[in-house]
């Protein structure tokens, strides 16, 4: 497999650029067509959200794999604390379309996520996003510890971008989680060329996974453009946390589509190629997926706008 300047270093992959499983890899225990469907849904709705002109909103196109995989790996009794760009988690978790539309438009008045475009699905165990930077990490750690104290075999996930790893709460959460062996899975998306972080911040080319390991946290660094390795690694992290073996951090190196990378850096395209290579993808299948997600969301948006008028 030929590597390009677009391909991250030091990451684990199972799919090559054409979507074929590498020789030693076993396919993860996941319904790949359902996984693909969730990825397509996340991508299409992200595009729709981008058209709404929401304040302080940013696209997650290209970063869907760790988000959707978190939603699929998490069991119903688990809890997920998403970051501010992680609406795809609630969508993949099966959030009600009308509720989704209501929240992204910022229509809730009785309390809710910090900003329009963010969602909270408490009944689905998707916690609200926080106002203070990175505060969902210790919240998730505490929640995870409570689940452990109560004797439940449940896990809490916290999803965030590598920019957050310069904050104090990130370091504090690692310390707190290791000190108490809490069943916490930290899901970090590292951008190859982060848009906002200056080089001086020390996150470009740095491995968050290495830093977590240095802090005593089990960690893995995987290719975020490879949905299957992301899923498999998250599932492994969750399993060991569930078994009481302590917190874990999975760093997925992602490429934002705004940088217009080659097609194999797009996780949706990579998994489509995989499905095509196994004969499980047809253009009809794709047409149905594209239409379905958008149709549900557009109908719900129209209903919300009608309710306003």
């Amino acid at each position, binding site marked *: 497999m030929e590597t390009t300047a677009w391909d991250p270093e030091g990451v684990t992959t199972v799919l090559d650029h054409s979507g074929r499983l590498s020789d030693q890899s076993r396919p993860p225990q996941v319904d790949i067509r359902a996984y693909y469907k969730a990825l397509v849904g996340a991508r299409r709705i992200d595009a729709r959200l981008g058209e709404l002109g929401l304040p302080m909103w940013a696209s997650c196109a290209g970063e869907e794999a760790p988000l959707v995989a978190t939603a699929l790996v998490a069991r119903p009794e688990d809890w997920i604390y998403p970051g501010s760009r992680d609406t795809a988690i609630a969508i993949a978790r099966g959030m009600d379309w009308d509720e989704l539309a209501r929240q992204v438009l910022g229509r809730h008045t009785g309390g809710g996520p910090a900003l329009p475009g963010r969602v909270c699905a408490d009944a689905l165990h998707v916690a609200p996003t926080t106002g203070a930077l990175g505060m969902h990490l210790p919240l998730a*750690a*505490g929640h995870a510890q*409570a689940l452990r104290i*109560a004797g439940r075999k449940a896990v809490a996930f916290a999803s965030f971008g590598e920019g957050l790893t310069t904050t104090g*709460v990130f370091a504090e959460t690692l310390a707190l989680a290791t000190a108490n062996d809490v069943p916490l899975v930290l899901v970090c998306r590292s951008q190859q060329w982060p848009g906002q972080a200056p080089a001086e911040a020390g996150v470009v080319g740095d491995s968050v996974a290495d830093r977590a390991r240095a802090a005593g946290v089990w960690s893995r660094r995987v290719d975020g453009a490879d949905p299957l390795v992301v899923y498999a690694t998250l599932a492994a992290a969750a399993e060991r946390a569930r078994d009481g073996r302590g917190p874990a951090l999975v760093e997925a190196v992602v490429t934002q589509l705004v940088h217009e990378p080659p097609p194999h850096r797009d996780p949706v395209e990579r998994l489509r190629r995989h499905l095509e290579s196994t004969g499980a993808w047809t253009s009809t299948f794709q047409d149905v997926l594209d239409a379905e997600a958008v149709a549900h969301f557009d109908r719900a948006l129209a209903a919300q706008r009608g309710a306003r008028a």
Partner: protein
Amino acid sequence: MSVLTSLSEMMAQLLREDRRRVVLGEDARDGGMLGLSRTCIADGTLRERVIATPLSPTTAVAHAAGLARGGARPILVFASPLGLLEGLAGLREAARLGWRTGQSAAVPLLMVTPSGPGFGLGEEAAEAIEATLARVPGLRVLCAGQPAEAAAWLHAAAQLDDDDAVPTVLVLPRRVLLADTDEALPDLGRACTSAARIRDGQAATVFAWGETVQVALDAVAHAQIDAAVVDVGCLAPLDAATLVAEAKATGKIVIAHAGPAAGGLGAELAALFADQAILHLDAPITRVTGADAPLSAALEAQAVPTVARVAEAIAHVANY
């Protein structure tokens, strides 16, 4: 019995009463810097529910809030109010966590902090923290006043079983912590969310809380004026109905509290009375507070108004 001992025993009682309760704090596994988890550690059946937290105030608060959301009943003990000041971002997040769910989910989190002078620390540690806490939306702020009631305050504050329980801070003034008490009352005898008149009087009404409650009682005796004393007790949200009714009763109001006057809760009370009791006011609403400047350890007592100053204020409004 010292108040600290009564609190340590009450902490153990709280853990015995409800298996969901856990005590957290720096050095909590060693009994804590205030010794509040000492009795819990000594009891082998409770020890496992005492959790030491790293030196990370912000995360400690958010972590405890997460515990509360996850079904536990965390009691986070601070050795100094500085932890809450440093952890303000986490505190703000914790205070609105239930609201953020869109359905006022319960966040049964109790935080306990000392405050004010008494340990000879000066500066921030000698300041009154409650005004800062009271303006965090969604937070309940309680303040123990009389030493005999300190343990009862802890017990009452920890009752967070309501479906919409909110994070609560119990402020324990250091002077109250250092006091001795003949009998530690097991029960507050009133809702911890209520203000209470603890001395009757016709000529004036002194509103106070924390260590200043005793100062107010002494000042009334010193002034030899028939003034009532109200322990405000619940500082956020204020028990406006009771406070306004008490203010109306005499119309001559002194508000005494520790810490600076500027931006203090005394100003909040004064505004409340001006708003809702204006036709009953019969003298200027008079505040007596601590110093408005940083205080060295040697001068930390100036963070609390003196008996003489409060007595003077009582005489001023009573004879107005």
